[in-house]
């Protein structure tokens, strides 16, 4: 199992598009938007830092794992694996674990950019809390990616994952704060898992504990999307 996990991580890191979309874009956009439109409160640099880290980690979960499962199913690779002692549930666990590991580079790099380039200064305990919190915040999207991966063929899964990545990240206020949205759109945004996932980290920056009333909405999405992923997985295997 350990060998397989390592192989999956290595395989994914060898993919130039993966690195570009899930690491290059978030770091690049973060620096672009904070350097060009920044200048104001350093609060913005910190808030946008966790937003872009979450956007990148969501991308890793949705496209790096979900679409990958669809490709491997379409190529018949999962059928070959099903004949080995590796059971389908084991395959899924490896994909999940790889996803968790692969969200780490973007989270750390965006934070490094925040610290080194934008001079974001936070208590050590806050830095340390943000990493597991962003991991947790990514889980619903990894579950969604898995559900797509077990439902669609490869090109379709890829397209759907990318559309959802942008719809959810923009709609959830990761690209521009929900405070700038018109009222009706802000109301929609607050129902999305992406807003509620971001909220966990934004609250910590504001000095609160991460789990407020909005965490219930997040938990609801997490449970629903995990159930969806589990159902699609059982249907497919």
């Amino acid at each position, binding site marked *: 199992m350990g060998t397989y996990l390592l192989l999956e991580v290595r395989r994914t890191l060898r993919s130039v598009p993966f690195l570009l979309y899930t690491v290059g874009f978030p770091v690049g956009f973060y620096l672009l938007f904070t350097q060009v439109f920044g200048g104001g409160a350093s609060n913005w640099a910190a808030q946008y830092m966790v937003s872009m880290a979450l956007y990148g980690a969501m991308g890793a979960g949705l496209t790096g794992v979900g679409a990958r499962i669809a490709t491997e199913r379409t190529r018949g690779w999962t059928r070959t694996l099903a004949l*080995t002692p590796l059971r389908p549930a084991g395959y899924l666990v490896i994909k999940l674990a790889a996803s968790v590991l692969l969200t780490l580079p973007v989270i750390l790099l965006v934070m490094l950019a925040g610290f080194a380039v934008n001079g974001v200064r936070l208590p050590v305990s806050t830095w340390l809390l943000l990493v597991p919190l962003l991991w947790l915040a990514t889980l619903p999207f990894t579950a969604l990616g898995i559900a797509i991966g077990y439902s669609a063929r490869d090109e379709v899964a890829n397209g759907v994952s990318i559309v959802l990545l942008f719809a959810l990240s923009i709609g959830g206020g990761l690209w521009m704060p929900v405070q700038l949205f018109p009222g009706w759109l802000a109301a929609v945004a607050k129902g999305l898992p992406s807003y509620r996932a971001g909220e966990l980290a934004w609250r910590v920056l504001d000095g609160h504990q991460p789990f407020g009333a909005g965490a219930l909405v997040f938990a609801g999405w997490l449970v629903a999307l995990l159930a969806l992923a589990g159902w699609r997985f059982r249907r497919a295997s």
Partner: protein
Amino acid sequence: MGSNDAVMFAGVSKSYGAVRAVDGVDLTIPCGQTVALLGPNGAGKSTTINMMLGLFPADRGRVELFGRSPEAASAAGRVGAMLQETKLVPRVTVGELLAFVRGLYPRPLPTDDLLRVANLGGLVGRRLEKLSGGQAQRVKFAVAIAGRPDLLVLDEPTAAMDVESRREFWASMRRYSRDGHTVLFSTHYVEEADESADRVVVIAGGRLVADGSPAEVRRASTAQTVAVALPYDGAAGLERLPGVTAVEVRGDRAYLTTTEPDAVVCALVERGLLRHVEVRGARLEDAYLALTA
């Protein structure tokens, strides 16, 4: 009980809509045999293999590998397979892939043996997406045998290979089966079954139509061949002689397939065409064509 048999099918059927792909198949394969599953396209070979491996459920009947369900046999690491229409995943080297697959099984083949049997010596560091078609087939074969499975299943493994690759492939397969492993392969090349199998199972229209050693299957057909020197005016009209079911011209001889060689020889005499006659039993190919007609 039953665990001396690698494969056991009892009354297995499978339909796709109104089409009965596999129709009441009974088949037992003892450990150690090399079996060819021979049949034309659409005969039910792949469906049979997919049910054997537990990838498709059977509509009716029972399928067991080593006395238990196909899933349990796979989970125990006793099965390896090369399926049709599977592609390798990109961005992995041959060596990394084989190390991973070996790691999944309890008693894998040592890496050196694996590379030798599958003829992959110089390719260990090569990325899978950079392999030629023939090389990719060898890697898929290596994936199938990496875990040293007791039962190796190959679904039309040589379908896309040229003559030289096919010859090398069967040499690899025989290196593996020699060590006492059970092998089942499907093919529609009769000569592959004749040369590489202890036993030939012929399937047509979802049913077993013959089962035995290549020699036995040959004898099961009453078809024979009458060969004569090619008439001066060519082979035209030979197919209309009484009792002739097929005519094949090779070089300067005509080969007439028939179940009534006496009648064919008489007809050739009447027409003055009997020169350098030779009558012999069917080739496996003739038996196969007669059985699956």
